[in-house]
């Protein structure tokens, strides 16, 4: 609700979006907004290893709490590029805001599940009868976690309208399940791995794996205006980012990568060793975005699926 009004207000801000930042100096500065989560580590890797510098780019990263803050910042001219989850981006696009996808961010791979439904051990969530009347903790309503929790309930034969979805921040989800404030919670790492260490809790489902394996969870976005004015700049950005992703994927299990992740996310190395670090995607999979948009329509987030072909930057991404 809040986010919708916010995005509408952002339409005015879009008109005021800043343009052109060509610096006559040797490097061009790009302001990229990221979250301090594992998904954004490839950007840090690309900066550290000099891939951006080699393309003549200087990346000015700023962090924020997510798409709800990043996208208005993008439209208001505070950033040139933001990392955002798929649902926030599609929601903004569906409201006529000038955002487009330029690079892949994160993907939900079935072979390395990171975000799963955690509940009490021994409790079943197989049939509709098990699920209806229960409560599920999600970090934000109208977000990607909420959407796939609902889709998961439906996939297991339940009616999402009969399940209550409560907002619980990720760090508090384990406590909420243990205290029965919610019956289950859809957790991300590192909270998921930490929670299932308790004997009472266990993974009870893998919503992304069950509903849509390979979901594109996040992307890097920019405004259409910025893309039209700076096509070469964006090509350089995506090239360097790609190299960052490749390095990260090749060095996932090394101490060096763990060190970078630890410094960026502030997760202690001991905690990192307990979790699965999934590889990051090299391509945007448009079919996955379309599927997510269809789910968003089915669950009432918008009336009709927006034109995905106009949502992706065709110069940088194959439709």
């Amino acid at each position, binding site marked *: 609700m*809040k986010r919708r009004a*916010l995005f509408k207000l952002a339409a005015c801000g879009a008109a005021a979006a800043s343009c052109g930042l060509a610096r006559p100096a040797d490097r061009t500065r790009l302001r990229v907004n990221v979250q*301090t989560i594992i998904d954004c580590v490839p950007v840090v890797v690309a900066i550290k290893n000099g891939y951006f510098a080699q393309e003549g780019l200087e990346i000015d990263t700023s962090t924020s709490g997510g798409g709800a803050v990043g996208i*208005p*910042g993008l439209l208001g001219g505070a950033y040139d590029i933001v990392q955002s989850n798929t649902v926030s981006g599609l929601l903004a696009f569906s409201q006529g805001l000038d955002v487009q996808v330029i690079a892949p961010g994160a993907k939900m791979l079935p072979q390395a599940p990171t975000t799963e439904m955690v509940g009490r051990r021994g409790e079943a969530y197989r049939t509709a009868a098990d699920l209806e009347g229960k409560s599920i903790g999600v970090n934000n309503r109208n977000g990607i976690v909420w959407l796939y929790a609902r889709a998961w309930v439906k996939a297991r034969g339940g009616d999402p309208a009969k399940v209550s979805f409560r907002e619980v921040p990720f760090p508090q989800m384990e406590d909420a399940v*243990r205290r029965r404030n919610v019956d289950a919670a859809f957790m991300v790492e590192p*909270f998921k791995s930490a929670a299932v260490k308790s004997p009472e809790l266990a993974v009870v489902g893998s919503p992304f794996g069950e509903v849509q394996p390979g979901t594109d969870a996040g992307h890097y976005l920019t405004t259409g205006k910025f893309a039209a004015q700076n096509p070469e700049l964006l090509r350089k950005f995506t090239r360097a980012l790609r190299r960052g992703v490749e390095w990260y994927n090749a060095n996932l299990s090394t101490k060096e990568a763990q060190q970078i992740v630890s410094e960026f*996310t*502030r997760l*202690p190395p001991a905690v990192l060793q307990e979790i699965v670090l999934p590889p990051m995607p090299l391509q945007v999979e448009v079919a996955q975005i379309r599927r997510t948009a269809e789910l968003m329509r089915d669950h009432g987030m918008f009336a009709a699926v927006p034109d995905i072909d106009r949502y992706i930057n065709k110069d940088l991404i194959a439709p």
Partner: protein
Amino acid sequence: MHGTTTSIGLRRLLQGMSGIALVLALLALWEASARLGWVESRNWPPFTQVLLALWDGLRSGELLRLVASTVGFMLVGYAAGSAAGIALGLLLGLSPLAQRFASPLVETLRPIPIAAVVPPLILFLGVGDALKIFTVAFSTFFPVLLNTIAGVRDGSEVLRQTARTLRLSRAATLRKIVLPGALPAIFAGLRTSLGIALVVVIVAEMVAGASGVGHFIVQSQYAMQPAPMYAAVACLSLVGYALNRLVLVLERSALPWHGAS
């Protein structure tokens, strides 16, 4: 009577210490509940761990840097909001016409909770220093404004009539009669606003910040490090206490004739 002074002194000392004793008892309860498993949670570290994190944070300078950054922005916003509140308050207090004109706008804006204001402001102010300063100034403004208006209104009518009789100019009346008369109320407003300013700057940092104590608190939770989080909260609590005491000292020196509460 012999021994009375000693027993009075002792009683005073014990009364003073009873407050500290209560705090210590609660901290002991915290420690016991975490260590003995009365409360089992990853987010509930024993208090001694929090003390260690506090010590580490202070030693490395990180906590001091964070607090300095947060308090710095808070004070800038606080000064701006207070100055505007006092200036407008004097104007509206002296001119009923102006007050009637401004009142609907003030009464509409005043109840808006700051957490609701922060996201739309991101569009105009970005995610950074300007946002923090503005939200603090916005929240500081209203209590100071209202208290200043009340202070002007409640000022002694007798003194104002005396000023008129003595043909004091408008400026002199303001400076010598109205302002000093309003100062007690203004200070009350400043003290209220200070508490609000500290809360608001933290909220702004939590919702849309990339630096400062508020952001650190959120980040520590997501990094599964509750002890540093509580250490930062403890720091904040000490800072709030210190700032409040500071304002009381300033009030006492500015208003020696008025029994400051």
